[in-house]
């Protein structure tokens, strides 16, 4: 329930009913018409406020704080804390891949955590039941997809901007404080959401080359992973 809409809707509804009664008493059909449309708008906004639920951001933020106590020591033990993640497509499947070495396409499907020739890696299959994302081939298309997923669905920030070139620069504006805090962790949800959404939309293997947080602006630079 979103109380602000419920309150606004009920206020419009109440004022419109009063206007309608007044219109009926003075026998003015135009006032009754305005009141009827107001009653409709008030009802719609009240129902929207009643049914709309905010995404469970706080629940997942707390859950993440718990999970990071497992993920961070694990990455520290593997020596992967400073390594930014990538998304690799192998045999039609997408994998989240974290390793200082080059992706080993033929091995990542066999184990989640491993060491190949002394180089540790984590290769997690990206679930196929994630919500569909639109396909993009150009910067403005990707910007639209990212806006839809990152802003409208995940509520990460207020706007997104994509600069398309040899690297893909993604800026997210007005990222809430708790998201910014989470963004400083290795393998954090904001990095993963940006990277996975972009890679799935473009259907390309991408690596998070750089991630900078200035004030409440999040900036990620993605680069295509060369085939090995």
């Amino acid at each position, binding site marked *: 329930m979103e109380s602000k*809409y419920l309150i606004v809707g009920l206020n419009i509804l109440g004022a419109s009913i009063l206007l309608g009664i007044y219109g009926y008493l003075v026998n003015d059909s*135009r006032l009754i018409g305005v009141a009827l*449309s*107001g009653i*409709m708008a008030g009802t719609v906004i009240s*129902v929207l406020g009643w049914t709309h639920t905010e995404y469970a951001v706080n629940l997942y933020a707390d859950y993440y704080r718990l999970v990071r106590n497992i993920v961070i020591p694990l990455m520290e033990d593997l020596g992967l804390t400073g390594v930014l993640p990538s998304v690799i497509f192998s045999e039609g499947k997408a994998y989240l891949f974290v390793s200082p070495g080059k992706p080993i396409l033929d091995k990542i499907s066999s184990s989640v955590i491993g060491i190949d020739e002394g180089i540790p890696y984590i290769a997690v299959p990206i679930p196929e039941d994630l919500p569909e994302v639109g396909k993009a081939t150009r910067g403005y298309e990707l910007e639209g997809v990212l806006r839809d997923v990152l802003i409208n669905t995940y509520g990460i920030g207020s706007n997104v901007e994509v600069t398309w070139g040899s690297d893909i620069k993604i800026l997210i504006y007005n990222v809430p404080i708790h998201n910014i805090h989470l963004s400083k962790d290795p393998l954090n949800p904001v990095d993963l959401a940006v990277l996975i959404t972009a890679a799935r939309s473009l259907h390309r293997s991408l690596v998070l080359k750089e991630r900078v947080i200035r004030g409440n602006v999040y900036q990620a630079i993605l680069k295509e992973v060369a085939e090995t």
Partner: protein
Amino acid sequence: MKKIDLFALTLVVMIFISNFMLLYTGEARADVYLSLAILIYYILYSVIPPVEAGKHKEISLLNGGLFIIFLVIVSYRVYQVLYPG
């Protein structure tokens, strides 16, 4: 801006504009105001869906209810044209 914010703001602004225009033209039929408001709601709902389709029973009921009201208004007007007086 979130979709629900955009939807609610656009709905109120557009209904305000349509009411203003109808008042300006001196429209005296109350049902015209309501039917235009319902039409604006449906257009906006298809362009900026504030919730996922079919996810909320209450919204589906509201949509059904408004459609029936719209249908009744239009049927009444058509009846009046066919059988005047």
